């Protein structure tokens, strides 16, 4: 276990370093910088802008800025927003909870819906529902989130006031966005589940077991345990995506969160904030994937034979 963890830790550091560096250069390649987003728009003179740029250290050559960034990080200084001076850690801390709530809720709905649809589709039973399951999954994959969201908001908050409206506060406000986001995520989970379950159902073990007259329930159970394995990976993947991909959902539903922080920061070229988010994102992904791998090993009934 220990060498496994050690290896994973090293990988995590490597991932974080690579991702943050990629983001570092990506942002600085992008046209304009934070001062364009703010000072130039108001008509500040080139001198004033240049002075501010120097004060913020943005006029240094890239390798210098790069080195300074990592030196600061080593000292635990994650920087402050170039735009309003708030510490990056504070910005993230203030916004992590609503995103987490939304992402987890959406993941829950996605798993429940996706696995159900996928299993029904893959096992091809109950017979009547199969087409509906496949169709629903296809629908979930086939429309952009911003569209379903708009329709849902109109239908379920204006036409029929089933949910709180856009921008509401309180625990119930997470329901509609989670439903929409979860519905879309369910699509890919359902697809993969269906294919994998169908595949498992054709395996040798199943044929043998049926021939031997094993109770149906056990056979199905085995199919599922094999067939649902890839779901673990997909779920981990989707979980990571959800955390990063809530940008549009948060914007449309007027919810606070890391997605909206990212969007604003990218628009304003607020480098420290974006990089802080990328580092966080890297850590989360690595953790999720490690978890997925561990679960995989423990759950696969065939690999367990090897101890």
């Amino acid at each position: 276990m220990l060498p496994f963890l050690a290896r994973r830790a090293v990988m995590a550091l490597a991932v974080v370093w690579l991702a943050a560096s990629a983001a570092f250069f990506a942002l600085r390649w992008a046209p304009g910088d934070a001062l364009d987003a703010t000072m130039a728009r108001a008509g500040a003179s080139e001198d004033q802008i240049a002075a501010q740029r120097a004060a913020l250290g943005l006029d240094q050559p890239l390798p210098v800025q790069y080195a300074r960034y990592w030196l600061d990080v080593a000292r635990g200084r994650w920087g402050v927003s170039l735009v309003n001076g708030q510490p990056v850690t504070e910005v993230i801390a203030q916004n992590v909870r609503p995103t987490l709530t939304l992402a987890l809720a959406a993941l829950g709905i996605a798993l429940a819906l996706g696995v159900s649809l996928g299993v029904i589709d893959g096992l091809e039973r109950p017979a009547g529902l199969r087409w509906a399951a496949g169709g629903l999954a296809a629908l979930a994959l086939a429309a952009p989130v911003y569209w379903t969201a708009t329709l849902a908001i109109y239908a379920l908050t204006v036409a029929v006031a089933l949910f709180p409206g856009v921008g509401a506060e309180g625990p119930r406000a997470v329901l509609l966005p989670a439903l929409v986001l979860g519905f879309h995520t369910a699509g890919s989970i359902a697809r993969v589940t269906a294919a994998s379950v169908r595949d498992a159902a054709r395996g040798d073990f199943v044929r043998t077991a049926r021939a031997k007259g094993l109770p149906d329930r056990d056979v199905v159970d085995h199919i599922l345990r094999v067939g649902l394995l890839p779901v673990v990976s997909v779920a981990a993947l989707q979980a990571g995506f959800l955390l990063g991909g809530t940008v549009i959902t948060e914007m449309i539903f007027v919810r606070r969160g890391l997605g909206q922080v990212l969007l604003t920061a990218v628009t304003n070229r607020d480098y420290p904030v974006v990089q802080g988010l990328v580092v966080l994102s890297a850590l989360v992904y690595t953790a999720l994937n490690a978890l997925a791998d561990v679960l995989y090993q423990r759950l696969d009934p065939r690999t367990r034979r090897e101890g």
Partner: protein
Amino acid sequence: MRRNPRVAVALALGVLIALLSVLAPLLATHDPRATSPQAQLQSPSREHLLGTDLLGRDVYSRVLYGGRRTFGVALLTALITLGPGLLIGAMAGFAGGWIDTLLMTLLDALLAVPPLVLALALVTLLGSGSVQIAVAVGIAGIPPYGRVTRAAVLEARSRPFVEAARAIGARPAGILTRHILPTIAPTLLAFAGVTLSWAILNSAALIFLGFGGDISAPDWGVMLADGRQAFRTAPWVALAPGVALSATVLAINWLAESGARD
């Protein structure tokens, strides 16, 4: 082998959409870019089969031409994602050890960079546009596909017949291509379908966020985003491209899945 009605439907749908896209110049009734502001937001009529949008353009013609762009983008994205994704995932899953660790680290790093940041960087280097979006989305799609491939390879690798093949001394490359890949092909194909769908939708999302490029070109993603503005007074503006998009994605998914089974 049972003939799956789904395959028939998907095939029919796919062929229909492809045909309509190819024949767009013949079937269209108007220039898809021609604006006619006095005729804005008209409901479907004999002159405009699917009505007009905010700038008075014919929705029917735009939907016809829009198919070409969508297919083009989807194909490009697929190439960029599936090729490298398959390669990397298979290598990592099969070789294991430090190769696996290295490749997974690279993929995770790519995955950790939010697509928004990635898109911005690529748009900077290459300019705005649907091709650039396709590239950005394509690259962003490599890690998920690589991961799923790797997972599938790992799972297949532990199967008895693979052990058997190894025991009799078959070469690794042979094992990979002749035994493992065919086994995991269904899952991979299914996920390829999913990836393609994501690609189409993520492109639409990037367009929605403003990385679009040629905004007057007929493009289902652009039409959907614009259609939101008037969806209560003129729902057909978004409904038409929406149905087209959904039908295309549906066809892709069902074909991928059925192709896997044959």
